[in-house]
């Protein structure tokens, strides 16, 4: 039982990182109907922004309340940096191709992804960096023998707060309503006077800042970052988005959690060798029976 609780916490904190990245994939897909493969690398840039900001602020080790303030400042600054990055990527790489075939823009996304990875290797260096301790990791509760540390909880809580904020933006604000309208039917939305370009930029800004938050939370939990972490984590988050039903925001969050929990339980109870195989087998099985993903809606192809 102790082991189970501990594995549950492990899985949830891993899952919330996947979920945050998956949100970006799914939002951009929802609006533009294409997979932004560079999204995983925006996540990597987020982690590195956190690393360099901590150095810039002269942040050495966490202690007391001040460290929490610092951590929040670093989190927000990284989110701003990545939001700017996402905005720029969309303006420079994707916008000129908006009327081209979907395949063109997809290949461009792969190009942007490779560009970010290898520029990262050049600028940051290829060897892993040790992410600073932004928040002190202390044992918080003991649940039936399982010691629960603060970091996984910080990750989980931050992720949930960000997701609630996202939900509020999408459901309650004018911008969010416009986003939903564009995702429903872009042409009709533009006829109603919605500025499509603004909405698309806004989507990239939100998605990329969530990826940056995921990057910082990743650094907190697994304090070794390198310029290629975006590949695997981006891929897993993409799978999570598909599993939850691509284009569906709640689905991405759910998908992320499912992938995180599956990976953890498979490694813990079966064998880590089969971890990815089983996670992907679940995806294939689910898509066989429910091709739209867990929460995805069927889209009628208009001829």
């Amino acid at each position, binding site marked *: 039982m102790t082991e189970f609780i501990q594995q549950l916490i492990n899985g949830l904190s891993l899952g919330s990182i996947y979920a945050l990245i998956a949100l970006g994939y799914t939002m951009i897909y929802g609006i533009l109907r294409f997979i932004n493969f560079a999204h995983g690398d925006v996540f990597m840039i987020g982690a590195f922004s956190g690393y360099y900001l901590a150095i810039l602020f002269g942040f050495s080790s966490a202690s007391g309340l001040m460290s929490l303030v610092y951590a929040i400042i670093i989190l927000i600054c990284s989110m701003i940096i990545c939001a700017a990055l996402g905005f720029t990527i969309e303006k420079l790489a994707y916008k000129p191709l908006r009327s081209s075939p979907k395949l063109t823009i997809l290949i461009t996304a792969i190009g942007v992804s490779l560009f970010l990875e290898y520029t990262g290797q050049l600028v940051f260096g290829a060897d*892993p960096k040790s992410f600073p301790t932004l928040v002190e990791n202390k044992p918080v509760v003991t649940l039936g023998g399982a010691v629960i540390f603060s970091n996984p909880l910080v990750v989980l809580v931050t992720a949930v707060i960000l997701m609630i904020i996202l939900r509020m933006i999408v459901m309650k604000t004018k911008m969010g309503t416009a986003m939903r309208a564009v995702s429903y039917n872009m042409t009709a939305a533009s006829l109603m006077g919605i500025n499509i370009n603004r909405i698309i930029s806004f989507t990239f800004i939100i998605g990329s800042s969530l990826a940056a938050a995921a990057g910082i939370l990743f650094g907190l939990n697994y*304090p070794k970052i390198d310029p290629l972490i975006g590949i695997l984590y981006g891929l897993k988050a993409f799978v999570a988005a598909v599993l939850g039903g691509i284009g569906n925001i709640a689905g991405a969050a759910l998908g992320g959690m499912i992938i995180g929990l599956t990976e953890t339980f498979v490694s813990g109870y079966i064998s880590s060798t089969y971890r990815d195989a089983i996670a992907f087998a679940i995806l294939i099985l689910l898509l066989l029976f429910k091709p739209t993903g867990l929460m995805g809606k069927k889209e009628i192809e208009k001829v």
Partner: protein
Amino acid sequence: MNIKKLVFSLTIFVSAFLLFLPGCSKNSQNEILIGEYESLTGSEATFGISSTNGLKLAVEEYNNSGGLLGKQIKLITYDDQGKPSEAATAVQKLINKDKVAGIIGEVASSRSKAGAQICQSSKIPMISPASTNPEVTAIGDYIFRVCFIDPFQATVISKFAINTLKIKRVAVLQDVKNAYSTGLADFFIKQFKEMGGDIIEVQSYSNGDKDFKAQLTAIKAKNPEGVFIPGYYTDVGLIAIQAREIGITAPLFGSDGWESDKLTEGKAKDALEGCYFSTHVSTENPSPEVQDFIKKYKTKYNMMPDAMSFLAYDAGMIMFDAIKRAGSTDPDKIRNEIAKTKDYSGVTGKISINDQRNAIKPAVILEIKGGQFTYKETVNP
């Protein structure tokens, strides 16, 4: 094709040809070319950097005292980024393009195996400074090493766990993508059981993973007295941090893959306090050879050498010594001379190459104290 296009493509072709021309015709008669392939970047970057630094010292020493066979040694080093496929490419380039007389490399066994296949089929002698997996030299008669092999290392660690640490219930966490790690784990499990120990759990990860909590939680549930992690320092640092986070307090112990000043970087410093690993040499060894080497290394690079620097220096010295005895740069003659190496007095101790082209040498156990590696004991073969 119209004329314009034809002229354009011809220009491109000719200029490309001219660009490559100077690269082809430089095999100076006054130089002996030695190739090296190491991971200068990537997740095991310190392995490559330490090795190439050590090897350069050996080259410098020869060149400053008149060179080798009256010629200067020229070292050509390629970075394999820590990838076996890149290691193979680097070795191909060293042999076919640079036409080196001999090759030094790699530290990691997976990469040494990739390079060794090519050296063997092209019949160019290769000395691995620090690959301990037995299969590396089993590839063929042109492949040598100047370090001990893993069955011995596994015995050393087992003895240490049972006799010094006095622990019997041990869990193993191995890297399944890494020939060195799985090999060493297998030898250790066999050896430890033979000595009366109990392996209570075997878990695995893949090099490059960041999340080890699932495996560690499963290990913790079995309540081990110690956890054996045959892996590389980047992963080990993260594993140690996460092991402490989920509440494993038992000592972690490992092997020469831990050897790097990056091991105890950041939070890993506290997580690894009081942990042990086996390796090739201790910098606390008072012998004049070791202390001399440290002094030279520190003067040149302004940092402490690690085991990889010592081994690469010896690998280079043995290669050059063999060339000197062979009196030529003919790869077959060099190979025969390397095979004859006996009681060569290197900075990592006396080196004799045996029939399996391995070196028989003692191992040391180091303890991690305050982020530093301190000498614990020596185990002789």
